[in-house]
């Protein structure tokens, strides 16, 4: 009881003795940074508003009028009704979802396993650590070329498989509609598991060691400690890591485009590839704006969810 009253009185004291000065300082600071804030607001809001504007028109750069005059081509939400009926869009969205549902969990589980491994010391740890982080530093387009070569029908992947099986294997990874998506996903997992590993390792190292020891002394085995202490303590960082990868993976493009170009046919056409094709080949920018806006809404939901958890984490220090 005495402790409870003590904290309350402390809070009161804190409130009473809080000087008025910081408030004034904050107001002055706001005024001083106002120009910069307006600029930032403009930079972020302008393209969005422009996009919103174009998305309700049939405007294209070849239409002969400036984008600000796009209202002349007002089509009253036809782009959005078209989008709802666009089967190529929906199958691209579906494909993107499949890639995400395979890649993100795979990257998460691999990253977590590696982080658990690297939380303890073992000989050569620093070298392995550097090697492990390398894929993340490779330019995605370069990674695309690497996997493009690896997955050629006479390439190293088939070579290795041939050695293992014993008979020559010539799988056309990138030109088989059923396999090309797998090849693309392998490349994504290779490139982005290190990021997951890095974030999760930071979280893992932050798990209080004495609480782990306390759990051990209370008879918890390694798996029980992992489930009852490590995972709950890492909850926030896991959500952040997953959110980053969900958002990034949704936009998967460079590696994939270089490996398959979205093909064969539309077999690896994800949403970004589809947008790219509509933009550069069909040149209907009003429609592109509508697609992009739809995706932005989806991703915003993910971001808001993640940020809510981050705010909660900041509220309660571990």
């Amino acid at each position, binding site marked *: 009881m005495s402790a409870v009253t003590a904290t309350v009185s402390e809070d009161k004291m804190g409130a009473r003795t809080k000087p008025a000065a910081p408030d004034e300082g904050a107001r002055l600071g706001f005024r001083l940074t106002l120009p910069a804030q307006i600029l930032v607001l403009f930079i972020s809001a302008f393209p969005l508003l422009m996009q919103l504007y174009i998305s309700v028109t049939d405007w294209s750069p070849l239409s002969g009028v400036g984008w600000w005059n796009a209202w002349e081509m007002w089509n009253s939400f036809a782009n959005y009704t078209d989008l709802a009926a666009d089967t190529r869009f929906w199958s691209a969205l579906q494909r993107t979802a499949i890639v995400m549902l395979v890649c993100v969990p795979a990257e998460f589980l691999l990253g977590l396993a590696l982080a658990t491994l690297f939380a303890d010391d073992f000989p050569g740890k620093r070298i392995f650590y550097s090697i492990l982080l390398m894929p993340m530093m490779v330019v995605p387009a370069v990674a695309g070329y690497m996997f493009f070569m690896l997955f050629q029908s006479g390439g190293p992947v088939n070579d290795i498989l041939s050695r293992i099986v014993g008979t020559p294997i010539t799988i056309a990874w990138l030109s088989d509609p059923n396999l090309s998506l797998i090849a693309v996903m392998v490349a994504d997992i290779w490139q982005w598991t290190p990021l997951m590993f890095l974030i999760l390792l930071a979280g893992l190292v932050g798990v209080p060691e004495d609480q782990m020891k306390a759990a051990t002394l209370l008879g*918890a085995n390694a798996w029980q400690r992992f489930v009852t202490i490590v995972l709950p303590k890492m909850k926030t960082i896991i959500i952040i890591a997953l959110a980053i990868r969900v958002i990034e993976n949704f936009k998967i493009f460079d590696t994939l485009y270089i490996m398959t170009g979205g093909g064969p046919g539309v077999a690896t056409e994800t949403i970004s590839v589809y947008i790219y094709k509509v933009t550069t080949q069909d040149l209907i920018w009003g429609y592109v704006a509508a697609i992009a806006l739809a995706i932005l809404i989806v991703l915003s939901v993910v971001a808001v969810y993640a940020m809510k958890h981050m705010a909660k984490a900041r509220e309660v220090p571990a």
Partner: protein
Amino acid sequence: MSAIHLQNLVKKFGDFTALKTMDLEIADGEFMALLGPSGCGKSTTMNMIAGMEEPTSGKILFGERDMAGVPMGRRGVGFVFQNYAIFTHMTVRQNLAYGPRMRGAARAEIDRRVGAIAEMLQLSPLLDRKADRLSVNILQRVAIGRSAIMEPAIFLLDEPLSNVDAAFRAVMRTELKQLQRQFKQTMVYVTHDQLEAMTMADRIAVMDHGVLQQVGTPLEVYNNPANVFVARFIGAPGMNLLKGRPAESDRGLVIDLGPLGVTPPLPDELATALRAVRGDVLYGFRPEQVTLAERGLSMPVSFVERIGARTIVHLGEGESAVKAVFENDVGLSVGQTAVVAPPASSVRVFDAATGFAVRAG
């Protein structure tokens, strides 16, 4: 319930020796304090008892059972960490239930045991609170309850009061002592605070630089320190030690303190023991036992500390500095000369070469 036997225990970390051969017997149900300055090896000893670290050599026995190779989860040891290591993401109830839950106890059984332990520790109204916003004394009770629910034979406490402010420490000391009476387990308590050790422990093991200095009841350690380290470390302020040389006089054996003169004659038994020692000795007496006298050591007052109930008077300087503690106030001020005399029965003598006490009889 279990006694603990430490036999020839050694712990090295690379080149650094944290513990040089430790032998200690802790009786069943005893409250033993491991006391010493930081880096003395007390926490290392404790961690080895808990199984967090393996001894480099030597044996740890719980009763008859050799603990070598027994993992910490299977030792039946309750451990209260310095910062309590409460699982902050759980409620008080989940913290208390953790041990039984991990061992697969039935839900009804867990509820019953949590209820019982919460009742005993007065945690019942707090069971559904999140553990990250509790005050220290509640955290301490949760930490003890979480271990106690496993009914360990041995309880280890690693400086549980060091994060608590002084005023609260007194409250928690009493609480801890009462808890030990309730649980009746063997308790090992690591601390650098002699007040905690003196007030709570049945016996104290004083350690320094990886060496066990002395084991005894609080009063034994205070009254008859085994060596110079214990004499200086125990007591606040520690024992006064003045360098001198034994000399025969017509009144019996005295100690020649050089410029300070000659001490009053030593008691016969101590004198007999002292005659066997060659070379310099240290003449020791407790500051609290000093009285002002007509005849004794005549020294200038260099500083007076008044702390209410007691007054600490600093006498002399350098090698021959002495502190004297008086009840209430004393009519001495800086610059005056005080004549102090320790009662003959409270005098302790140490061999200056070895540091060991010269014991009568």
